[in-house]
């Protein structure tokens, strides 16, 4: 088993944190993991992305060029990474901020209105966790419990009080996938 993930969006959308949460969760579950950020002279509002590998064997290249999954939080990232997903892979699109459909017809595509759902929860900043919930529901690569176990490691003990709202966001994201599956089935 090897899951190779690209997560991309604007700086400030929490794409690095999503990647770290998945990496922590993989480690907690005894898998081999790596997290590689894009780094550069970038800033809030610029583009940000990270590569995550979760594998049952040693991780070879930590650079993900051919992703099993791409998680896309904004439109420039969709343009950039849409074709990085391998045939049969999965593409998660934040439909709140991306007004076009994917042009791929050889992969599974999930449209998740992350910012709208986060807004309904009363905290716009958990849009990334909504998406993470959707990803976990659709792929089951790691468990929600493992992700939550890594929460304070990534965000620090000082953010422990935000765990409930983040948990709720993950649940709402999962719910969105279940609804979508119901519609298409």
């Amino acid at each position, binding site marked *: 088993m090897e899951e190779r993930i690209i997560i991309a969006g604007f700086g400030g959308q929490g794409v690095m944190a999503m990647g770290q949460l998945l990496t922590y969760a993989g*480690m907690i579950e005894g898998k081999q993991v790596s997290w590689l950020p894009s*780094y550069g002279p970038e800033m809030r509002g610029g583009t940000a992305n990270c590569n995550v590998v979760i594998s049952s064997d040693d991780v*070879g290249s930590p650079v993900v060029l051919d992703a099993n999954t791409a998680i896309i939080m904004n439109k420039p990232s969709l343009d950039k990474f849409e074709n990085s997903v391998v045939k049969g892979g999965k593409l998660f699109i934040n439909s709140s901020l991306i007004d076009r459909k994917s042009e791929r017809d050889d992969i599974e595509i999930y449209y998740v209105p992350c910012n709208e759902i986060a807004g309904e929860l009363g905290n716009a900043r958990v849009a990334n966790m909504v998406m993470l919930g959707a990803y976990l529901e659709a792929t089951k690569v790691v468990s929600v419990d493992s992700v939550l176990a890594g929460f304070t490691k990534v965000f620090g003990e000082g953010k422990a009080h935000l765990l409930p709202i983040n948990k709720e966001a993950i649940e709402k994201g999962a719910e969105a996938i279940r609804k979508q599956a119901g519609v298409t089935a």
Partner: protein
Amino acid sequence: MAKVLMKGNEAIGAAAIEAGCKYFFGYPITPQSELPEFMARELPKAGGVFLQAESEIAAINMVYGAAGSGARVMTSSSSPGISLKQEGISYIAGAELPCLIVNIMRGGPGLGSIQPSQTDYFQATRGGGNGDYRLVVLAPSNVQELVDLIIEGFDIADQYRNPVMILGDGMIGQMMEPVEFKKPKTRELPPKDWATNGTKGERKPNIINSLYLSPEELEAHNIRLQAKYQKIRENEVKVESYNIEDADVVIAAYGTTSRIAKTAIAQLEKEGYKVGLIRPISLWPYPYDEFNKISDKCKGILTVEMNSGQMVDDVKIAVNGRFPVYFHGRLGGMVPTPNEIIEKVKKIYGGEI
């Protein structure tokens, strides 16, 4: 101790503190700035001193002073900053002082870029400073090995009274992987009776110096240094090999590039190709002898680097004409892809190059 997820740069700092490093002198530069940042926060808690110097030149000379007093000391930088440190490194090698120098390489020449590269191989293994000196140069390929080599590196430095360089690239500095902190194999470390840590009125003052005005004395000093380097060559070679007795093509690569090579090899194996790997962990001393184990049927060695071909010179020395030596590299902070390596291996297989 349980595994923790750490960024390479922070793991270097944590490993150094674990190894008893008490002094860190540095100057920030991407892509290694998280390391001085970590040391500024954590080293004082461990009873040590972090100091951001006014320049890289000052930092390496502070290392010279602290090492002379017998303390465990480290500095770090990235390529252009390491260039600035070369004079100090030569002095430290000449004065035979133990210390750890970390180079998280970025694209060059000059200020270049901040993206990962391996362009300082020559500088690290051939001596960027003046004089007939050698650094022990260790090149980790993942964050766990980075931690292990930092901890062992301090022991190697103390055992031989020699500076040790950890040579990584921007990728290993920036990436996060699980690590645990393990005790290294026990080495018998000589007492630091040469250190300038106060005579207490009980002995003659020790002198730390690299100046010998008499050529006879300097020659004797150099002969002693060379004997020490020979001992290091005999004892400190580190290498990982994979399937070289049965391979039709062997890839030579180090650091994170070797991981990209491993991904390529796994794909090639699925397609029925037999491809081996030699991954030097110590770049100096270089694992020349490992190449003697390669099967006679091997069609060629493909060296892959993030530069225009530097380690390939050592591969040619090691192979000594026994096999053709090919090269694939990306420049300027670009990273080779598994597909590029796969294509090249297939061409070697097919006799196309």
